[in-house]
């Protein structure tokens, strides 16, 4: 019961924060609503007993990435952007297609939810073995290669953004 209550609370934070992020005029307000949305998602992770993801979500997204956003927003002059139209003329078309796709996804999830292989609730084990330890086990044995290759992905992203940010080629 209390779980359900918290679920709806966090879901409201996630969705409401997301909507306000794109509708606020001021970029700083948008960034702050993004924090609310990300914190809501962190709460959802915690409800799923994924403590590691919860901590990562708070430390990396809320603590790191959005903070960086705020720095950039304050460094860049946004007066010009604030005077421009918030949405372009096709916003109603975008809204309609977003609702359409959302409706489709809702339909499929409703109709097919029985076939999802949901993990059974973890049995409390006498030995202290948390989500984080299990994640580490899998990440550094079975999924070692993707873990290492992701570092190349990050390298490409860093090099690419430096190239794009340089004054002249």
């Amino acid at each position, binding site marked *: 019961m209390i779980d359900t209550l918290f679920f709806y609370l966090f879901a409201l934070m996630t969705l409401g924060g997301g909507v306000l992020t794109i509708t606020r005029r001021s970029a700083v307000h948008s960034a702050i609503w993004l924090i609310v949305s990300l914190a809501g998602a962190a709460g959802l992770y915690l409800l799923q007993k994924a403590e590691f993801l919860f901590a990562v979500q708070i430390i990396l997204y809320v603590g790191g990435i959005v903070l960086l956003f705020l720095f950039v927003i304050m460094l860049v002059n946004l007066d010009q952007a604030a005077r421009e139209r918030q949405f372009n003329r096709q916003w109603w078309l975008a809204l309609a297609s977003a609702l359409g796709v959302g409706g*489709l*996804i809702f339909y*499929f*999830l409703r*109709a*097919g939810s*029985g*076939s*999802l*292989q949901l993990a059974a609730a973890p049995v409390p084990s006498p030995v202290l073995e948390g989500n984080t330890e299990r994640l580490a086990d899998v990440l*550094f*044995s*079975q*999924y*070692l*290669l*993707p873990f290492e*290759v*992701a570092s*190349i*992905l990050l*390298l*490409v*992203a860093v*090099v*690419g953004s430096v*190239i*794009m940010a*340089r004054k*002249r*080629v």
Partner: protein
Amino acid sequence: MPDSFIPTSAELLRILPEIILVLAATLIMVLAPLVKGREQNALGYVSLYGLVAALAAALSGYFDPGPAFHQLILVDGFATYFRVLVIFAGILTTLASYQYLRREDADSGEYYALLLFSVSGQSLMAASNDLIMIFIGLEISSLASYVMAGFLRNRAQAIEAALKYFLLGSFATAFLLYGVAWIYGITGSTYLLTIRSVFERGAQTPGILLAGAAAALIFVGFAFKVAAWPFQSWAPDVYQGAPVPVAAFLSAGPKAAAFAVFVRVFVTALGPIGGRWEPLFWLSALATMLIGNFAALVQTNIKRLLAYSSIAHAGYVLVAMTAHSEIGTAAVMFYMAAYVLMNVGAFAVVAHVCGRQERFVELEDFAGLGERQPVSAALLTVFLLSLIGVPLTAGFFGKFYIFRAALQADLVWLTVLGLLASAVAAYYYLRIIVIMYMHQPAESAAELPPLRGALGAAVWISAAGTLVLGIFPSLILNFAGNSALLAR
């Protein structure tokens, strides 16, 4: 500590091409600050040697097939074929870029580093046997190519192209990832063979409705990467805005790799539910062919024309995928090789003719090319004839095998309409040939240097490959046929 923690040397050997490519890219980035200004173009040699070494490694991988890294990687004939193909596309792009970058005063090591990173991502995609690996490979390849599209930053069009490509590409990737999440939810695995075995349970196939929707979401991601309808609209703008050698690369490497994983995911993992996604492919193949060919008719810019033509060619490949048979897979493999050769070749000739700042990319600028540049004009004619599908060129056998595979799968209407669409295509390709040979050159036509050096090598290699595959298709068709039986 589990014994599997340290990868064995046999496992490392199976990803040797990617290791070589990433090392070469890193080496270039380390060397770039040590080399002054224009001499940075010499780093193109490092790129070339790295690619050739990776090509050798990829070829040698064929003699030691097998899985690696907990089956996330699978080196088989199919993987070897596409690895060799994307690395070869990288070699052609490196050759085609050298003189272009010099002419634009944009000599830079980073360009080659990004190219190598992109190729390494594509090579990884070709050898992936798991949705997570496919996704990471795809992202490495795409991120590097977004930056390459906007590499000439002082050109507004290039920035626009890069931004469009980046925004739409990230959006499409999100759909792909959502589809992967649903597949994981239904089957409990991201490993392609396990997914297949879950769906193979026939009548009791779980979540067939949800699986069809997941296949559609994954289709969105891949269809964007290969520029298939309804996600083709980015291609003309991006190809037009990007530097010509980059446009050549975008139309070859990322597309070939995307088709490789497209086939692997849909034929291997989602093969048992083929009846669900076949209508989707049927419609997309038809619309892609029609839109590509009819829109190309009215283009006056050669880069846009080639972009629409590459959309149309993606449509032909989708016809072979709709057949989802072994012959269909072999036809996809053969066609991609033919397509890479003729398309990169055509773009390389454009890179030669376009001149500084790409001033000469309108069709009229090709007037009288047959007199001014007999060799370039003749080679471009070879590529255009191959793109039409004239016998004795690679394009002919490519189309032949695709439509044969479609007929064997009883896709009669799709075959008929596809053949009609490719007849329309003959018009706009022939129009370029007519302009080159029958029209008088404009007064303002620039003096062009002769076609030689690295760019010349790229064009000649592509032309030779196009003709060899057109006369002796069995050279690689047999290999494709033997490798088309994907792991089940």
